[in-house]
């Protein structure tokens, strides 16, 4: 838990630096045509000091070395505070390997500030409002994702596939559950 917390501090410090850089380069408003998004990386639930509660889905992702790409993506999309919400949130967390399996350049492209909205949509496609174990997910035919699109749930033997991605591990979180998946689940459009 303590380690998680340190990671979090490092991450937020990094985020602050990144933010400064963006501003000095005058890149504001390049990502959203209508909204001047106000984000303050120092405020919000993601930045609360709490080493007593069960780690939330964001802290679990940050604490996992297999999910550094996902964490970088969450930070680039500035979705940290959404992931520490009361939820409940069910996050399908693709591993670094899953991201690496995407066509070359895809991740780098998505991490560019001008693609923030697209990246956010993809990440939201990995989040369900709910908290269901892998076993319980077998009851579903589909899930409604935060991207406003549905993903299919399929059962093959003992395995559960969500949007074509296989659940390889599951970790309970303070505000939901993280299912580690072996593929990035891409929205249809």
């Amino acid at each position, binding site marked *: 838990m303590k380690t998680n917390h340190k990671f979090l501090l490092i991450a937020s410090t990094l985020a602050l630096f990144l933010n400064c850089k963006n501003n000095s380069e005058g890149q504001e408003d390049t990502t959203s045509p209508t909204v001047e998004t106000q984000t303050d990386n120092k*405020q919000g639930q993601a930045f609360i000091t709490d080493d007593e509660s069960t780690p939330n889905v964001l802290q679990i992702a940050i604490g996992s070395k297999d999910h550094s790409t996902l964490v970088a993506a969450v930070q680039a999309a500035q979705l940290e505070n959404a992931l520490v919400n*009361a939820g409940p949130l069910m996050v399908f967390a693709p591993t670094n390997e899953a991201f690496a399996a995407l066509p070359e350049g895809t991740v780098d492209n998505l991490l560019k500030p001008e693609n923030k909205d697209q990246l956010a949509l993809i990440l939201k496609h990995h989040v369900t409002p709910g908290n269901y174990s892998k076993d319980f997910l077998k009851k579903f035919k589909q899930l409604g994702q935060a991207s406003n699109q549905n993903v299919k749930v399929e059962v093959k033997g003992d395995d559960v596939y969500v949007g074509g991605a296989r659940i390889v591990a599951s970790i309970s979180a303070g505000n939901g559950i993280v299912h580690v998946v072996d593929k990035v689940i891409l929205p249809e459009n």
Partner: protein
Amino acid sequence: MKNLFKISIGFLVIAIAFTSCNDGKSSKSNGALSSNAAEKVYVAPGEHDEFYAFISGGFSGQLSVYGLPSGRLFKVIPVFSQDAEKAYGYNEETKPMLNTSHGFVPWDDAHHPDISQTNGEIDGRWVFINGNNTPRIAKIDLSTFETTEIIEIPNSAGNHSSSFVTENTEYVVAGTRFSVPIPQRDMPIKDYKGNFKGSLSFISVDPDDGRMDIKFQLIMPGFDYDLSHPGRGKSHGWFFFTTYNTEEASTLMEVNSSQNDKDFIAAVNWKKIEEYVNNGGGEMMPANYAHNVYDEETHTATSTMKKEVRVVNPLDVPGAVYFLPTPKSPHGCDVDPTGEYIVGNGKLSANLTVHSFTKMLSAIENKKFAGEAYGIPILNFEDVLAGSVEQPGLGPLHTEFDGKGNAYTTFFISSEVVKWKLGTWEVVDRQPCYYSVGHLMIPGGNSQKPFGKYVVAMNKITKDRYLPTGPEVTQSAQLYDISGDKMELLLDFPTIGEPHYAAGCPADLIKPRSKKIFNLEDNKHPYAAKSEADTKVVRSGNIVHVYMTTIRSHFSPDNIEGIRVGDKVYFHVTNLEQDYDVPHGISMIGANTSELLIMPGQTETFLWEPKQVGVWPFYCTDFCSALHQEMQGYVRVSAANANTPLKWSLGEDIE
């Protein structure tokens, strides 16, 4: 001093500009110091706030009164829960207020306050609020800031799509959240579908004294009716209710009631049903529900059990009810000030759906239906859709309006308020909430004339916003200035219980009518003693009535003898003061109840059942005067079989 203040603020602004990596736009920071937020919420000592805000207490069962923009708490009005501070629900006069068909229920879950209206504008006469758990609607009189009426709602459960008033306070409306067997009966839960029903109650409000009466209940299909709002302006005469669980599931709702891609907003033409009922339509159904009314002259509540209620089958009134398909378990159901737009916030949808009243009417006229549910016509989604706000945030809940063409929607999961334009559906601003916002309130928001200066966001999660107080921390409200193009966070302030919704209005609507005292001459309490000459102690068997008075700084009588163990002693205490803000309190050692807090001119009663022989003191519990500490008395309690004569006195010994 003022200059010094400005200069120091100036320095701070510069300092912040230098030290922060912000781009220098003050509006982009949350910090109060980077703008004049502090000045905007500062109400100088002795000055008054511009707005009243009535914020529901949720699971506290009460309603709290705040000032805006200062966020100062003025009063907690007890409504559905006992309040020892004010003796509400403890004294003999107000116990009947909490009577129900289930007996005395001293708690409820208070959700949605709404202020009475005349001609579509807030009139500041009463606030109505719903009790969810044991379905009730309460009315608070804004001249006394006291709960003066509570009516129980039969055939209802989880009274949640309540208590919203129509444009002239013709009705306060209460919709059931949970469908139940109507009438209640012993039946298997698994037979829910098709057998359980949902009731939507239209409670008429007397235009003179505000007296409530259930005019009719519309008995609808067994969905969950979540929230509602009246039509206004062009849609006056209609009422809109969001529904979920159109699947009619009865277990694991979080999965089973989320199967349908769309649920409905039920559009109810209440004027049509009213006409039907006025012509003898509907039928009286046996029922059992409490109607509790507090009388300001007797200072006493009476509870009457009502034995029937008029129910209406929607199929008997063709053209009165339609279903508007609305995506994904819509929660908030909000109507804009013109009455044209009906916003459904699908809490599992990432988009906001806005229906058009005009398009709805034309679809109805052209009889363009997509089908029916239990005989109620379903309109085509595309035919009634005015537009949708695409991907504005995560977990939309509620929308309010500023009267300038903008709407403000809360998002629970992404924890923010998003401002968007009616008609173009374009998002124009967003501000984070700390954290997980539920309802929001713009003063006058539920009327044709909102006062679009501030919005209050009521948050569900507080965490680190204040000094920590253990695992339980107060819930937090946030005040934003919405007078400009961009919203600006001005203030955090703590709230009581779990604030769900709030109603606000300009202070000037209420201030001049606020009562200062109750006229002693008008006091018609049966046990009032209107002068010290009227005080007495009367025994009838083991029941003893003490007619007592208070004035600065003594009780009359203050010595009583002849009370016996096993007696039931009623202290009826009249406050003889006729001076603003001079209440007296009283409490008796060992009394199994709260103190009394008696306003000038008022009479209140507490019951004391002495169990031990001795001489027992009582005293004034409200610091009333310079000689408050002298305001005390004694009661001599003798054995159950003793012959101590019943005597009382003030200023002389009992011989």
